[in-house]
C-alpha cells in the first residue's frame, strides 16, 4: 500500500467518527458535524486522484459540511410526550435529507475503499468493504422508507422498529468506519509479519 494513503484514510475514519458523536450542551453541538465532514472531505479528495469514488465522496462530504452547518444551532427540544411527529415538518425533512446524503457518502467511501484495498491487494478488506456497503445501503434505505410511517403508526410501535433500525445502522456504520483504519495499517502489518524472517 502507498504510504501516502495512511494519513488521508485515518482522517476519513476520524472525521466520520466525529460525525457519529453528538455532544450537546445548552442546545449547541460541541462536536459539530461539519468539522467531521470537512476532515472526511479532505481525506477523500487526497485519494481522489487515484480512485474516482473517493473523489465523488470528497465532493459530497464538502456539500454535507455546508448543509450540516445549521444543525449546530438546531435545538433538539422534542417533547417526549408529544413525540417526534410533533417536530416541524421542515426539521424532519432536513433530518431525513441529511441521513440520505450521509448514507450515499458511506456507500461512496466503501466503494473507494474497495478500490483502494484491491490496489493494495488486501483481499479481505476488499470483500468486507463490498459487503458492508451493501448492508449499510439496504438498512439506510429501509429506514428512509419507514420514517414517514410515524405519521400514521402508533408512536410506541414506530419507535420500537425505528429505534432498532437506527441501532443496527449505527453498528453498520462503525463496521464501515473500521475499514479505513485497517487499510491504513496494511503495510505495517506486512512489515511486522516479514520482520522475523529477515
Amino acid at each position, binding site marked *: 500500500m502507498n504510504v501516502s494513503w495512511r494519513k488521508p484514510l485515518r482522517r476519513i475514519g476520524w472525521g466520520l467518527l466525529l460525525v457519529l458523536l453528538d455532544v450537546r450542551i445548552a442546545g449547541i453541538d460541541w462536536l459539530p458535524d461539519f468539522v467531521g465532514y470537512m476532515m472526511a472531505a479532505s481525506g477523500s479528495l487526497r485519494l481522489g486522484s487515484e480512485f474516482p469514488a473517493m473523489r465523488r465522496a470528497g465532493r459530497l462530504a464538502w456539500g454535507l459540511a455546508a448543509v450540516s452547518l445549521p444543525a449546530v444551532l438546531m435545538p433538539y427540544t422534542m417533547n417526549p410526550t408529544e413525540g417526534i411527529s410533533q417536530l416541524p415538518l421542515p426539521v424532519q425533512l432536513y433530518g431525513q435529507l441529511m441521513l440520505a446524503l450521509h448514507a450515499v457518502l458511506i456507500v461512496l467511501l466503501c466503494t473507494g475503499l474497495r478500490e483502494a484495498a484491491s490496489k493494495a491487494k488486501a483481499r479481505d478488506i476488499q470483500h468486507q468493504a463490498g459487503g458492508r456497503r*451493501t448492508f449499510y445501503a439496504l438498512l439506510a*434505505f429501509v429506514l428512509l422508507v419507514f420514517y414517514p*410511517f410515524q405519521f*400514521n403508526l402508533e408512536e410506541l410501535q414506530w419507535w420500537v422498529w425505528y429505534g432498532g433500525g437506527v441501532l443496527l445502522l449505527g453498528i453498520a456504520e462503525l463496521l464501515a468506519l473500521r475499514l479505513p483504519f485497517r487499510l491504513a495499517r496494511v503495510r505495517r502489518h506486512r512489515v511486522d509479519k516479514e520482520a522475523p524472517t529477515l
Partner: protein
Amino acid sequence: MLGWIKRRPWTAAAAAVVLIAASWTGNLLYRGTQLLEEPYFFTQDQLVHPGTNQLYIPYLENRRERNSVLFVQWNERPDAAIVLQETMGFRYQRQLTAYASWEVDQEAYEQLKEPQPITLTVHYRNGTIKQVRAGTLRKREESVLGIKGKGGGSDNGSVNGAAACDCTLERIEVVPAELGDSIRLKPYGFGAKSLQPPVALTKGETIRIDWSFAPDGGNSLRGAHYYEMGLELTFRTEDGRIIREREPLAFPNLAIDENDLTALVKQLRKGSEPHPAMNGGSSR
C-alpha cells in the same frame, strides 16, 4: 436482486428515491384524511343544582394543529373562568376539556329558565373567533330513583339505584332517541333477576341497569353524542303523576372511545353532520 443493483446502480438509486418519496407522499396524504378540519366541540346536558357546579365541555383538535384553541369564554356566565386541559391523546387528535366551576345560589337556581343553551366564544390562535353551541343547562329534576352507584368505562357500565317511593317503572329509553339501536340495556331487579318494564317498585327496592355499546351501532352518531348519552326512566307514581328522569351514561370528562372518534372524524370530513340539531360544531 443484488446483481441487478450492481449492474444498474443509477437505476437502483432512482428507484430508491422514488420509493422514499412515495412513502412520504402516501403517509402524509393518508394522515391528511384522518384530521379534523377544525376543532370539534361536543354538546352535553349539564345538570345544575344549588351550590358549586362544574362544567366540562370536551372538544377535539388535531395533534399538529397550528390554529388550536387559545381560550374560551362562556357567553351566559362571562364571570366563570374556563380552563383548558388535555384529557387524552389519540393518534391524530387530542381530546381537551374546557372546564369551569361556578356557584349557583338558591335564588338563582329558582330563577333559572331551563333549558338554557350553553354557548361559547372560542378564540383561536390565529385570531379568529367563533361562536359554538355546546349543550344545554337543565335543573336537576325531582328524583324517584335515588342513584346509589354508577360505574363503567368508555363502552359499557352500569347504573343502580333504589326507588324513593312506591311507583311503576314504565319505560327505560336511551336518549337521544336516535341512539336506541346502538346501546344495549339489561335491567335487573331485586336479587339480580332480569326486569322487564312496566314493573311495580316498592319504596327502597333496588334496580340495576347494565349498558354496553352495540358493536355495529353507528359509531359516528354515538361519537357525536358521547357526552349527551343517557337513560330516560319514566315512572308513574301512586297519585298518577308521570315523572321522567335522565341519567347520563358517560362521565363529563371521560375520554371518547377511539373507534367512535375515528368514525366521527370520518363523518365530519364528509361534510354531513352526524346530528344537525344537536351537533356542537362551530357557527360561522
